[in-house]
């Protein structure tokens, strides 16, 4: 499941992100930027998971609603709880994408020993975008496979 380069190292750094009540990890080296609340222009007629586009230092970035992509409800309570959505910018095929998520957590350095393949019983939608799972002390961290995540949006 995992590529060879990752297996060679004993630890890897991940940025944890929170979506609904689940923590996800994104390999830190794939992240270009973390954005606060942004002014997103909606794109008419676009696929539903496309939240819109935004301007990041003169480059047009396509925003992807991760909740939508994962088949979750939209975060409707953002105003009441005072939380605002954030964006994690990644590059895919020379284009920038901002993954709209609930919030960003810590950066974790994780040992390869704690890595597990995704359980085959997981929702196929989730399994298809995940690289595997890390066992943390009190919870599980699902690793987002960016190419898979965006690649499938692409199609």
């Amino acid at each position, binding site marked *: 499941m995992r590529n060879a380069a990752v297996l060679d190292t004993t630890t890897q750094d991940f940025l944890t992100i929170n979506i609904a009540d689940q923590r996800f990890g994104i390999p830190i080296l794939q992240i270009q930027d973390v954005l606060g609340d942004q002014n997103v222009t*909606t*794109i008419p007629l676009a696929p539903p998971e496309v939240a*819109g*586009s935004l*301007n990041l230092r*003169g480059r*047009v970035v*396509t925003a992807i609603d991760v909740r939508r992509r994962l088949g979750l409800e939209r975060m409707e309570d953002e105003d009441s709880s005072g939380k605002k959505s954030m964006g994690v910018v990644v590059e895919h095929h020379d284009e920038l994408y901002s993954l709209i998520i609930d919030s960003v957590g810590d950066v974790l350095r994780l040992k390869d020993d704690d890595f597990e393949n995704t359980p085959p019983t997981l929702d196929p939608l989730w399994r298809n975008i995940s690289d595997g799972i890390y066992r943390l002390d009190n919870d599980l961290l699902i690793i987002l496979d960016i190419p898979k995540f965006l690649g499938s*949006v692409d199609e």
Partner: protein
Amino acid sequence: MEDLISEFLTETNESLDEIDVDLVKLERNPNDKELLSKIFRMVHTVKGTCGFLGLPRLETVAHHAENVLGRFRDGDLQVTPEYVTLIFESVDCVKMLVKALEETGQEPEGDDTALIEKLDAVYESRESSAPEEPAKENSQKASEGGGKFTQAELDALEAAFHSTPGPNDAPAPKVAEQKEEPAATLPEKAVATTQSLRVNVDVLETLMTMVSELVLTRNQLIQILRTNSESEFNGPLQRLNHVVSDLQEGVMKTRMQPIGNAWSKLPRIIRDLSMELGKKIELEMHGQDTELDRQVLELIKDPLTHMVRNSGDHGIEDPETRKAAGKPETGTIRLNAYHEGGHIIIKISDDGKGLSAEKIKAKVIENGLATAEDLEDMNPNQINQFIFKAGFSTAEKVTSVSGRGVGMDVVRTNIEKIGGSIDLKSVEGEGSTFTIKIPLTLAIVSALIVEAAQERFAIPQLAVRELVMVNENGENQIEHIKGTAVFRLRDRLLPLVSLSSLLKLRSDDDAEDSSNRRQYIVVSQVGMVDFGIIVDRVYDTEEIVVKPVAHLLRDIELFSGNTILGDGSVIMILDPNGVAKHVGSLDNAEDADTMHRSDANEAYSSEKTALLLFRAGEDTPKAVPLSLIDRLENIAFNQIEYGGGQALIQYRDQLMPLMTFDNSVPEKSDCEQPVLVFTHKEKTVGMVVDDIIDICNEHIDIKLDPPRQGLFGSCVINGRTTDIVDASYYLTKSDNNWFKDHDDAPYQSPTNSDEQIRNLEQHSVAKKRVCLVDDSAFFRNMLEPLLRMSGYDVMAFEDAREAIKLADQGVEFDIIISDIEMPHMDGFEFARAVRAHDAWQDTPLLALSSHTTDEDMEHGKAMGFNAYIAKFDRDDLLQAIAKTISDQGYSENSAYTLESSSASQNAHQSKEHHT
């Protein structure tokens, strides 16, 4: 070595283009020594470099070509077109090899001996003293490895190395441009004058992108500080502003290339063309220095070449024809390029025969792009536009140059792809001029920023023709026909599409009362499709940097890209082509054209009709054919009386029922109102209207199906949407005995046909069957009910070919009424066909036409028509039908025997009545 080869390729490609141009010049001025030396030098350089790089095949060809050129230069051999053609062949061969080298990195396998033989033959013909052996040996040796040379060659080679810069030196063409210098003194000069250097295009592209970003950042800064006039940043920002503008201009310049580069191949093409076709053609080029973005340049190169070829092939006549037409034998094709308001205008004109409307028409019909009738009333410009349609070529014979039918439509498509437009003017016999308008650059475009449902979008300025503000209560209004929005723009109906509904945006305003909402119509034109886009707001025009949309959004064809505005927000750029496709949900622009045109065609299809325009009830003007109206009266409403649930008025010693269009009963009042009086036989009916507007002669082109009963439909008259009133509908309503006069004709009203049919059955009168052929929907709509009401069974056909099919099926009619001017099969042809058919040869045939000269009548009779009726004379028509049928009834007794008694009786009576 790799580097050397790529350098060589670039240089050689440039040289080869130049050689083409120069050879054409040389052919005209065979004694131009300088020119000859220049060509010689260039070929020489190619040869020399090839030897150096170990490209034997290339070298051999170049070498033998150079030999011949050498003879020219030495004055041993006269420059003739044949020899020049030979040199061209060699140049082509070199080009082919260079291209292969470019693609594969290697010289292709192959054999050039045929060409070399020819070159040698020329070379040796004058130099009989030179033995045959060495030449052959040369070629062999050279092709083996390029290492061994005869003394003569070595000399030449040495000269080559002396006279030309090596591959790493300054580019050869630049040297070559120093025309006055003979070979020997060139090298130093070349080095000294070289002011240019090669820069990889990628570097320039990156630079351009970065400048674009800088421009955006500047715009953002300006936007931020606009609200803060006191800011200390204002001064520096202003300077930054200027510097950035200059920088943008400067970088744009690096991408600019003179349009002459795209033209360099044209002289050669024209030369070859004149040789092949035996024409004399002069190519004039003006404004070669006009610069435009190299991306654009690349894209217009092929369309331009194609068009110049076309001008030469289709436009310019052969010398004899020209002479006969009183023109100089040599035809001229003129290319002109210049800047105009941020665009480049390229004109290609020739003084040839121009476009032949007749040929185009014939071709259009042949290819089924339109019907003869459609074309009939089109103006020449509209007809000329057909050459831009797919599958069209006017060349009678297909030459190697043009006439393959993939012509101007491709040109148009390509030009429109880069946001340009193409226009055509042609005078038959005097020549044609094509005008191409293209943007200076594709990277930065001027766009109109609009808003729909609180979202902003950019529309490229080039597609925007005009802006119209509309207001529900104002002068300009959007009108709705069955939910479809249209707008009257001067003399035509413009289909509208709402941006927010097109993009499926939810508009909060929809819920609100929209009566006072202002909207704007962006009138756009794409190709030949006109449409209007309804938007909520129009901002400014802005210079925007076009950025491609993300990969996963590519499928949305309504957007051509996105951009970042001065305020930092991202907005989508609408693709006018995409929008045009959605107008009327058409699959492609071609269809849109056809649709558009067939609409226009209908307008021309019918003859002009005198119409009375009036207003009644609604605001929309109404029209009714004047021929149906007996008189116009002003009637005082205080004289209205009531009887039998109807409003009546005493009129000329009769009681005339009064009708209104909304079917209400007119009320007694003190005012006077105009009334249209319809009279048929002794019966009259008055139709109350609000006011009478005008009488006009118009083509009736019913655009829309009847929105409700009592209307034929709507069309544009005097620039306004007008409802065409089906008078018979109202009249039958008013009086069921309308049209039924005494008892001369059995009568059936379409509104209560059951009862009528029962009546008919009781009277046991068989209805006469009428076949009506008229291509005009209007007349069919008009005559069908009229004939029905007069007691005939009617089958109406738009196309005579359809009607004649019925003869084969054994359907019989008592009378056939046919229009004369029709597409596909006109009335005369139809008559011939009818008369030729066994089943129908005796069926009476009436011609219906607006042209009723004696001559026409004679012709019609000769073709088999029994009678000839003017189109608008209702009484005449009914009378003639009755008469013709009755005559026939007397004279024949085959199919009609059963009915003949009653038919003739009826007809007889009616005849008596009418006479």
